[in-house]
């Protein structure tokens, strides 16, 4: 690392570009700057990325902006255009330019970069976000262009969710730009996209926005028709999200159409769900109180109205909702005006001026309110100036009710100033507009639409109930079918279980046999170990080693044969010899062994169950041949008799104890009995054995003879 730094600082001195790209204000970024200087961009990229998470970066936005700036350049050098744009946008979010020229240069730069990025989904987002940025910069024309490009991309990759969102935003922009037709067209595109992805929330939203356009233009009939469509979607899907907003918007339409009963009805609907967080956002709760205030004011209940608007003010202040604060103050001003407190009213109006946003509606509405006050105070000059401002506002046709209000105020003012000609002209415009808006026919039609909607809703409810009944009937039928099916399944399951059990039992016995075969008597193992230990203490290393290798050889055979069901007789005898050698090696004066194998026997071919003889040999040695004061002898005789190997094991030891109780039964013999049962069941061949004390035949003889018959497994 040290070497790096020295090397880098050398370049630092000779490279004339240093001053341009590095900022000495942030020494902690020095390493990254240096890396990017010597073209090690990807390392620089990683370094800056890491630095983004540093405590300084998290607490200091200027510092973070600086890192983003560098990341833009490094990403560009790495041809990561999408990332470059992303970082550009992030950088600009943190550090806005104050210099107009620099700002333009920046915007051009990103615009240059955009075509280089290639991932469509990413591009959609980037164009969209760039558009949003331009909107904030109040560069609406360019913003519209980028939104359109984003929309094209989204359409191209058939990402309808994106199409719906972008078209919706674009429509808003067009509306504000006064291009009402395009706005409605965009809302319709948003609607189509929402239908394509079956997104009811977006669908309803699009309907609402389209309706809003019509209503603002004064076409209440179409407006309410589309409005009710939106509501229908919401209610039929029982989709409660933002429901309050929908009710309030519908109420608003009725208010504009002077249908105050319906206005109140829908506001009360919204009021009922005001505590449901899903349906009512804090902002909607605020506007709801505004509406309630409006209703109270309309009924001339001024005190409750003041209370409602105060609530609106409090809630709006809490959530920093400027338009709410403004509406509250304006309305309070109007009430004060009605109460004759003009001064207080003007004071409130001025106060509300602080909450003006760039939304033209509030400018127009604010002017109108102020005019109403100034009229009473006789300040006609100011009044005319404000009204002229409204008339000249391009957005005025977008807001039918405020337009009406402006016309009415112009008529009243001119009348007061005795300018009858103008007054008459304004009155004319006022009537035309008013008639258009509140035409009796229109109102009738709207009422009819409403009734139709309610009827439809009821019909739908009836349909739903019928459908539910139908479903219930079918459910009962299905239930029967299902029960029958379950029954069949149960029977089949039981049959399967029966066979499985049989199979499992078979497998179990197999495993058991294998396990039994592999069980070397632990007592034997410990004896072997004990012997080895003894040799070691006596420093008889050679004996120990020899003994150990014999044991290894035996355990090798046991391991190999325990997996087999049968073994050739020669191998069984070999294993037996191995075992006997091991036993003999432990004795100070070992017994003699003798094997007699019938020469005509094919010992390599005869297959018998493995390791059945060992327990008898073990028994003979342990209970017969140990600690004798004469030389012991163990002899074997193998013959073949009609599908059996007849084995005779004879020792000249102490003989069987007179009372042979169970304690004397060795573990080995116990295992033998278990295996005997299993083998007999499997091969349908009997294993027989018989103990004989030799002294019962001949008094002079000692020891035991064992007769064994082992089945030959490959005997036809």
């Amino acid at each position, binding site marked *: 690392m040290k070497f790096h730094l020295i090397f880098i600082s050398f370049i630092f001195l000779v490279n004339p570009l240093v001053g341009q790209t590095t900022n000495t204000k942030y020494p902690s970024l020095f390493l990254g700057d240096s890396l990017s200087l010597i073209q090690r961009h990807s390392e620089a990229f990683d370094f800056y990325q890491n630095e983004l998470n540093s405590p300084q970066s998290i607490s200091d936005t200027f510092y973070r902006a600086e890192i983003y700036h560098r990341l833009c350049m490094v990403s560009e050098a790495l041809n990561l255009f999408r990332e470059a744009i992303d970082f550009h946008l992030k950088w600009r979010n943190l550090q806005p330019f104050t210099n107009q020229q620099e700002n333009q240069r920046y915007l051009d730069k990103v615009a240059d970069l955009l075509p280089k990025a290639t991932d469509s989904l990413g591009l959609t987002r980037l164009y969209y976000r760039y558009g949003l940025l331009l909107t904030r910069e109040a560069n609406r024309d360019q913003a519209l262009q980028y939104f359109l490009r984003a929309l094209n991309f989204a359409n191209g990759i058939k990402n309808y969710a994106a199409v719906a969102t972008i078209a919706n935003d674009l429509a808003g922009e067009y509306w504000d730009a006064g291009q009402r037709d395009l706005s409605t067209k965009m809302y319709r595109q948003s609607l189509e996209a929402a239908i394509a992805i079956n997104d009811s929330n977006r669908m309803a939203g699009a309907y609402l926005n389209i309706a809003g356009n019509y209503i603002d233009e004064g076409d209440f009939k179409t407006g309410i028709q589309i409005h009710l469509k939106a509501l229908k979607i919401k209610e039929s899907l029982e989709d409660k999200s933002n429901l309050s907003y929908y009710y309030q918007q519908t109420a608003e339409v009725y208010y504009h159409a002077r249908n105050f009963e319906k206005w109140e009805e829908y506001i009360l609907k919204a009021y009922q769900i005001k505590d449901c967080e899903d349906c009512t956002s804090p902002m909607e709760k605020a506007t709801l109180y505004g509406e309630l205030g409006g209703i109270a004011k309309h009924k001339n209940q001024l005190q409750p109205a003041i209370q409602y608007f105060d609530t609106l003010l409090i809630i709006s202040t809490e959530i920093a909702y400027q338009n709410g604060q403004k509406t509250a103050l304006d309305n309070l001003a109007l009430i004060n005006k009605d109460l004759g407190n003009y001064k207080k009213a003007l004071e409130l109006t001025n106060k509300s001026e602080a909450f003006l946003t760039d939304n033209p509606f509030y400018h127009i509405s604010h002017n109108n309110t102020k005019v109403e006050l100034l009229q009473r105070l006789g300040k006609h000059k100011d009044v005319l100036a404000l009204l002229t401002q409204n008339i000249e506002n391009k957005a005025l046709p977008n807001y039918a009710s405020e337009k009406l209000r402006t016309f009415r105020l112009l008529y009243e003012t001119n009348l007061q100033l005795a300018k009858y000609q103008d007054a008459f002209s304004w009155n004319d415009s006022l009537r035309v507009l008013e008639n258009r808006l509140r035409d009796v026919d229109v109102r009738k039609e709207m009422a009819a639409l409403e009734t139709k909607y309610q009827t439809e809703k009821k019909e739908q409810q009836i349909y739903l109930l019928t459908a539910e009944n139908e479903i219930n009937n079918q459910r009962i039928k299905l239930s029967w079918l299902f029960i029958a099916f379950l029954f069949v399944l149960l029977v089949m399951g039981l049959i399967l279980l029966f066979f499985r059990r049989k199979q499992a039992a078979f497998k179990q016995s197999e495993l058991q046999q294998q396990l039994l075969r592999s069980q070397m008597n632990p007592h034997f193992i410990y004896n072997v170990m004990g012997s080895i230990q003894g040799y070691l203490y006596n420093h008889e290393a*050679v004996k120990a*080693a*020899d003994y*150990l*290798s*014999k044991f*290894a*050889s035996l355990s*090798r055979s046991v391991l190999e044969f325990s997996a087999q069901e049968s073994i050739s007789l*020669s191998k069984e005898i070999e294993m037996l010899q191995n075992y006997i050698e091991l036993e003999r090696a432990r004795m100070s004066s070992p017994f003699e062994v003798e094997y007699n194998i019938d020469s005509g026997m*094919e*010992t*390599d*071919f*005869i297959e018998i169950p493995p390791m059945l003889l060992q327990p008898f040999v073990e028994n003979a040695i342990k209970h017969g041949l140990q600690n004798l004061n004469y030389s012991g002898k163990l002899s074997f005789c193998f013959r073949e008799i009609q599908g059996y190997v007849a084995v005779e094991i004879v020792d000249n030891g102490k003989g069987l104890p007179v009372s042979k109780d169970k304690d004397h039964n060795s573990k080995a013999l116990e295992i033998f009995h278990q295996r005997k049962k299993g083998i007999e069941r499997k091969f349908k061949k009997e294993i027989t054995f018989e103990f004989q004390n030799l002294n019962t035949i001949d008094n002079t003889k000692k020891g035991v003879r064992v007769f064994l018959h082992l089945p030959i497994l*490959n*005997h*036809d």
Partner: protein
Amino acid sequence: MIKAVIVDDNPDIRVTNKHLLAEYFIEVEVVGEADSVEAAYNLISQTLPHLVLLDIELKDGTGFQLLQKLTPYSFKVIFITGYNQYALKAIKFHAIDYILKPVNATEFREAVQSTIDLIEKDFSTHDQNEQFLQNFSANVGPSKIVLRTIDALHLVKISDILFCKNDNSYTTFHLSSDEKIMVSKGIVFYEEILTESGFFRPHQSYLVNLRHVKRLDKADGGYVILDSGDEIPISSRRKKSLIQLLENL
């Protein structure tokens, strides 16, 4: 003086082998030990031993990999192995001496003595080695078997063997060239390794190459008649499986 190298990743086994060599073979000098393919390669390249005691499983590979790296080599190998049936079969096939772990002094003496005989008689094991390694790398069944007699190492094509006859713990190979080779190993040893190469033991004393079976004569309990005219008796216990085997050929 015979120079020997012990290659095993278990230091205790190296001690045992060194001890046994010192105790029984005064003419052998252990010139080095190694526990990995790499170390063994360097050691053998430097010391040029006559005899290598080689474990199959090493730290960084197998004993076969070591031999492949060293090919061609002239030293003799004794394999030391635990429980690797596959490797053991290949070793037996090529008449290479081997010792099973844990080491049994008797077996050890026999194996080392047998290999020292080879060195003293200056038998070339070059063909044997090559065949052995080829068998491993090609991963196909062997086409030749190594038969070791008192005075030579015979590399015999398996297809040239007619049958083997057992005679007390000796086995005589009868070849199609009328040559006979007697080896001091029991027939069971060859039955084990040749069954996969298409051999069958119709009788306690005979192992037959099924390629050379001309027909079965069912008279008198049955005989296998070979191309060469030799008649091999069939044990009644083996008749059924022999007929099955020939039908499936």
